[in-house]
């Protein structure tokens, strides 16, 4: 039985069915990162899918932009409890990228410029569920928000949508990434409130 907080009424209003439990709506776009923001020039930018032994495919900025770029409208949910509904992005579907790659591995470690990592099952990157996002709200991505390019996996808590994405490493087992070693859940489904260990 929850403790009733004397005198607390909250903001009230209708329960929003688009809001997972424990989340609140924000109109801002809060920034959360564990360290300094890396600044990467697009001429230097590369994205690769690889194993620990070999690179399976690498795309330059221009090569990525030569692929079909999709419009994405989606809700996003941060483990720090803000959610933002109806955000608009543009990016390249990971289905497109994985169409050129053969792998039997079932797990992925996303690796970012600056050293950030996060783990995701491959199945969560396919089937129209994940993108390399290049634009937010009609503009190129700010470095603060992960520009020039970030992973976008909106059905998981937003720490899985790695900023400053540099590559995906295929793995036979699910290994913990950065936040997953530091207190956060291995999978991170916002609808199941999988926040912490």
């Amino acid at each position, binding site marked *: 039985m*929850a*403790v*009733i*907080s*004397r*005198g*607390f*009424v*909250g*903001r*009230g209003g209708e329960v929003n069915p688009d809001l997972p439990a*424990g989340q*609140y709506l*924000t109109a*801002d776009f*809060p*920034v*959360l*990162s*564990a*360290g*300094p*923001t*890396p600044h990467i020039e697009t001429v230097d930018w590369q994205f690769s899918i690889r194993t620990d032994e070999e690179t399976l495919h690498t795309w330059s900025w221009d090569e990525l932009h030569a692929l079909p770029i999709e419009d994405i409208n989606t809700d996003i949910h941060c483990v*720090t*409890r*803000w959610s933002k509904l109806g955000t608009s992005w543009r990016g390249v579907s990971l289905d497109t990228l994985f169409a050129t790659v053969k792998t039997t591995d079932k797990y992925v470690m996303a690796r970012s410029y*600056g*050293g950030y990592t996060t783990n995701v099952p491959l199945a969560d990157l396919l089937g129209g569920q994940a993108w390399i996002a290049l634009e937010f709200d009609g503009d190129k991505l700010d470095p*603060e928000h992960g520009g020039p390019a970030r992973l976008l996996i909106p059905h998981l808590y937003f720490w899985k949508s790695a900023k400053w994405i540099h590559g995906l490493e295929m793995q036979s087992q699910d290994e913990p990434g*950065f*936040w997953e*070693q*530091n*207190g956060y859940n291995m999978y991170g489904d916002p609808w199941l409130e999988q926040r*912490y*260990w």
Partner: protein
Amino acid sequence: MTGTSEARDGRIGNWKVGVVTSIRRESASGRSITIDVPGWGGNIAGQHTDVRLTAANGYTAVRSYSVASAGVGDRIELAVDRLPTGEVSPYLVDTLREGDELELRGPLGGWFVWTPQQTESVQLIGGGSGIVPLMAMIRSHEASGSDSPFRLLYSVRTPLDAFFRAELESPSANLEVTWIFTRRAPSGCPRPAGRITAADLEAHGFPAALSPTVFVCGPTGFVETVATALVALGHEPSRVKTERFGGA
């Protein structure tokens, strides 16, 4: 990564019911709140806790707050700044009273933490209520008798906006405190009021050559400015740990 194993012991678990034992005014909008939380079992400096409020109609709101205290035991201190458009912080600052119950879950987080086993120099840089997790580190540092040299740069609008002012005005021997006033500096303060700059970091922070661990906490703009300047001054990005205060 230090702290991970201690943080990983699965104590996050269920919601615990704490009782507010005292509330102290830190500034016009800030309060520190001491809470007895049976079963808390201690925390590492820099960790945070979820706080859950429940209205009479069952509506709940949860936010995370840094813990200003560190060490073993079931008594913790939070320090909260009222965000004008916030939902939880105005309640904690304006409505909460001694004797009230509060639900908490934690301690949480294993990255933005300091443990007394660390021996390297530590540079703390806080903006506004971003001082809270840094205060836990300062207290843990002092309580443990650590030899690790600590420096704090604390940026506030005016002297009246400082949290933990009395405590920081008489720091322990291994801690050097530099105040940055952004809107109004006290008379006699050699530095004119203004936002923190690379020159402040260079003049009062540990040099990059010493490879200090740097903890930066505050509003997003403050953290971006400071972290970018630190990297430009030669600090290894992986040694600069940041925590940004956003949301409500």
